[in-house]
């Protein structure tokens, strides 16, 4: 109970510095992004472009599926 009050700020002058530094962004993460017009091959274990039947990730004309650079930050072990 004491800790609950502490969380709520009863015993705290200011917000914890990490909470103060949170970078907030719109929740628009969709792990399926980039897979339009493609299909996943269970046998091959990778996505194929529907029109070329070649690996999606090797097609330079398509938007890149989510990567560190193009994805929002979620921590590196949230695969």
């Amino acid at each position, binding site marked *: 109970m004491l800790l609950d009050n*502490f*969380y709520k700020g009863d015993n*705290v*002058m*200011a*917000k*914890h*510095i*990490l909470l*103060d*530094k*949170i*970078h*907030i*962004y*719109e*929740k628009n*993460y969709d*792990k*399926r992004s*980039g*897979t339009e017009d493609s299909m*996943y091959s*269970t*046998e*091959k*274990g*990778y*996505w194929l472009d529907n029109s070329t039947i070649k*690996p*999606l*990730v*090797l097609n330079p004309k398509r938007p*890149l*599926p*989510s*990567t*560190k*650079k*193009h994805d*929002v*930050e*979620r*921590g*590196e*072990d*949230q*695969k």
Partner: protein
Amino acid sequence: MIIVDVLLISDKYDFTTDFICIELERKETNYLRLNRDEFHNYKIQINSSYFDMLITVGENEYLVSEKHLKSIYFRAPIFLRELNQAENTLESVLYKEQWMSFIRNLLIFENVLWANNPEKTYKAENKIVQLKYAKKIGFSIPNTTVTNYPPKLHNEKYIIKSLDTAFFNIGGNEGFVYSNIIDKKELQEANLKLAPVTIQDYVFPKTDIRVTVVGNEVFATDITISGKGVDIDWRKAKDDVQFNTVSLPTTVKNNCIEIVKQLGLKFGAIDLLKIDKNDYIFLEINPTGEWAWLVHTTGQPIPQSFANMLVMQ
């Protein structure tokens, strides 16, 4: 019945794993990718008679046996940070907890190469442990204090960051804590009581270097804007940065290989700061780090390196 040589534990939408499957196919390897979000579509069992795993995926039957299996590529979280959030249904919690336990039990395959073994990753994910190992190996490390009260401060600026990934759901939005530059006065007056923070010496000028280690192979990339190092956490400026392959001094390269080995890993994504020609500082190692973005941006043959390692034995 297909006898599996390489087992990949991943997620259907983890495109990083696609790169490795493409290379394994080129090598005509018998591999099987199991996706954590598709377990309900598989028929799967492990029996105590032989501790083999039988899996039916579509029309195909697979046998994963320690006798034949060479390696396991493991792309799954070690710490389930999002599990207890209110939006999870009972079914979702049951699915995640039980299947995560199931894949952790793949540790029955003890005599195969793991990239990485979750048991080793569990230890290696911890930042203070990493710094201890890095220092022991001979890396320069930043002066670092992990604390819940402001320590004695001598510099004008510091870096402050979370000890572990700090990721939040906030009223329908998401929040993340990057590394922040903070001045002495703000840090002295800051409230730290509720949770420990990591305080490191602020270093600038510097250039961020991402080093991807796969076994004994090392791929180094510098991260710059207009050829210069980035002062802030570069992830905040990720639409403006450039990535270029660079070479490392032999000592630094060997230290990168060594820390991966000493932590019991086969792969690690290491963050360094380059201060001068031969002066590098170790920041951290990510045992589950991302690397597909480097394939796209630099052309580094990381998938080939992984595939070679996974089939070797």
